[in-house]
């Protein structure tokens, strides 16, 4: 068993007249299997881009980032779908955006799908201990 420390910070100097400086952190107990950080060239067929296995009730902490480039390294502005296996879209990332969330409590995995062409995604997942 290991410890994973995720921290989210939201900040703005001009969103309101009050400065926004918000931070939240946690200490998560995680175990195998895990993928520390990987890249995938994601296509338009989600079933070919499963990044986290079916959960069988287990919880996984999933991180995904749209790198903003395609398989050839050219900049792209197309969106990257976050999906549960079976093509169930639950979110979309634009270039440069990221997400970190727990997935599980059901029997589905996580897959990625490019809205067109290819998109290079960074991802990681960690299994809740």
């Amino acid at each position, binding site marked *: 068993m290991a*410890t994973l420390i*995720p921290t*989210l910070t*939201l900040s703005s100097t001009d969103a309101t007249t009050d400065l926004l400086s918000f931070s939240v952190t946690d200490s*998560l107990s995680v175990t195998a299997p*895990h993928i520390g950080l990987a890249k995938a060239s994601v296509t338009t067929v989600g079933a070919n881009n499963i990044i986290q296995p079916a959960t069988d009730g287990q919880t996984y902490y999933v*991180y995904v980032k749209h790198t903003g480039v395609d398989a050839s390294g050219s900049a792209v502005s197309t969106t990257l779908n976050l999906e549960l296996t079976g093509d169930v879209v639950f*979110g979309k990332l634009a270039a440069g955006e990221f997400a970190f969330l*727990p997935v599980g*409590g059901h029997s589905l995995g996580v897959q990625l799908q490019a809205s067109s062409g290819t998109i290079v995604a960074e991802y990681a997942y960690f299994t809740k201990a």
Partner: protein
Amino acid sequence: MATTTATVSITSSDLVPGMPVSINASSTLYQTGTTTGLELVEMGRGTLTQASGADALADALGTADTTNWVYICNKSTNVEQYMIIGIHETKIGHLGSEEWLWMPWNMGDSDAEINIEAEASGSIDYEYAIYRSTNTLPAKT
């Protein structure tokens, strides 16, 4: 135009011996397909009870397929308590005690409310923030 920056850091010193994990990412929150910052923000805190069943944290009162962001934190310190997070009929995952999430919410259609539900017994305090590209005000009654 005002902007907000989201930054995540994910670290571990003991997940893999000799190979510390250090993941960092940062992005500016923009309205859909633009470089205009997201300025509609709703932040708050609430309490869920298991008895209440699933509640909608937010309805999809905005333009479909837009860029919106959701932060939710389960403030319970009881490790037996977790929040079920979903969008309409889609269950995404369980948010354990003191855990948080940061995810896009694109309001794919009008039936795309964010659902939260407390498990197991008792009540769970939570805090949240929602950044929206658009928002439709409720009709006058």
